[in-house]
């Protein structure tokens, strides 16, 4: 697993509301934030938290180069021809950078999440769900079920039955 991640707006906007959000910077040495993603982040708590992490050095600004931009547009065009939910430029940049540099892509966008599978891309995409599970595996969080429920409550998010079945298989109960 790469020790570097790149995050899109859908991930950061929700993750910033999670009271255990700091575990992210304990899992990844650095989280890249594309300029196009930063443009989309307008409101607290996300804008304050992202600015704080940039200042501290655990996040770093990712400036899109022409080759990344081109790859992002190619991925957007490709995704439109497939049964995928819409992928816009900022999340396409994350996918392109993930492909180029091996970063783990952090996104809550359904299209971006399934893009590797549907488009045959060699890139790992995690939602908050996978980040919380990884944090639990590393013993950065104690009770996985409680933490996922906390995330649901704080981010106004719901995990599906398939995700909960996976969780029960990990914690060994139902």
């Amino acid at each position, binding site marked *: 697993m790469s020790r570097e991640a790149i995050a899109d707006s859908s991930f950061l*906007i929700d993750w910033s509301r999670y009271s255990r959000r700091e575990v992210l910077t304990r899992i990844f040495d650095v989280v890249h934030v594309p300029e196009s993603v930063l443009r989309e982040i307008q409101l607290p708590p996300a804008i304050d938290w992202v600015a704080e992490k940039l200042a501290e050095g655990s996040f770093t600004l990712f400036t899109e180069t022409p080759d990344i931009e081109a790859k992002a547009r190619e991925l957007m065009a490709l995704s439109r021809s497939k049964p995928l939910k819409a992928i816009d430029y900022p999340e396409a940049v994350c996918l392109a950078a993930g492909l180029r540099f091996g970063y783990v892509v952090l996104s809550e966008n359904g299209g971006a999440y399934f893009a*590797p599978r549907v488009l045959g891309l060699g890139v790992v995409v995690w939602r908050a769900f996978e980040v919380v599970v990884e944090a639990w595996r590393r013993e950065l969080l104690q009770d996985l079920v409680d933490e996922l429920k906390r995330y649901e409550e704080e981010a106004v998010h*719901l995990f599906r039955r398939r995700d909960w079945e996976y969780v029960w298989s990990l914690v060994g109960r139902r």
Partner: protein
Amino acid sequence: MGVRMESGGEEVEARELRRRYADWRFIEQLPPKLKAALIYYIETGDLRRAQQLSGLDLDNFRELMRRARVPLVN
């Protein structure tokens, strides 16, 4: 943690969850564009398209979703 494609059943489950938790009284009172965008998200789960329909940026659309108690379900 392998990625599996969403099945039709899973899409139905996700839509049911979004419909069930939404604050429909709040949604009904919204201006047409915002109401349509939220309903679009509830029905399809396509966050980006719904946000574009709303005319809001993603951060503000997500805030609207929260106020309408519409959960993000992936």
